[in-house]
């Protein structure tokens, strides 16, 4: 049975445009390898962090929501854990609709 999950990823803020594209492509490839489609994607931009994470005071936030079985979030967890460009991530189950707009997108930090 498939459920709706969502993930927020904090990416290093000092990456170049090509590196960010490569990272997003690798994440999208990982989704398509496991035959899961990204339902909804958002870019919250670079935000000031409230405390430093591995000596970075800013972070670039990426958000995506997807529908999958219960085994895929575990695989995604392992994939993101060993990704060096990803500072921190949170995968959670949600009751919201797959294409609901988050409040973070139209608010400046």
């Amino acid at each position, binding site marked *: 049975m498939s459920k709706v999950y969502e993930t*927020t990823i*904090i990416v290093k803020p000092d990456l170049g445009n090509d590196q960010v594209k490569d990272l997003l492509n690798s994440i999208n490839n990982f989704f398509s390898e496991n035959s899961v489609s990204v339902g909804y994607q958002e870019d919250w931009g670079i*935000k000031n*962090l*409230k*405390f430093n*994470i591995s000596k970075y005071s800013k*972070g670039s936030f990426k*958000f995506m929501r997807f529908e999958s079985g219960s085994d895929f979030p575990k695989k995604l967890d392992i994939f993101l854990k060993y990704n060096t460009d990803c500072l*921190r991530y*949170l995968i*959670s189950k949600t009751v*919201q609709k797959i294409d609901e707009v*988050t*409040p*973070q997108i139209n*608010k400046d930090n």
Partner: protein
Amino acid sequence: MKKNELTPADFIKIDYKNTHLLKRFINENGKIIPQRVLNTSRIAQTKLARAIKQARFLSLI
């Protein structure tokens, strides 16, 4: 309306992404205000605490 009051419309919006709402339920040190002060229900307080801790982990609040 009091600053700390949780309306039924707010209850649905409790989420780690909604930091504007969560900031009403923490004090200036970033601590969660207790249930006996807020007068929230147990279900709402559990939901709030979980959302605040998730937002803290992502360094949003």
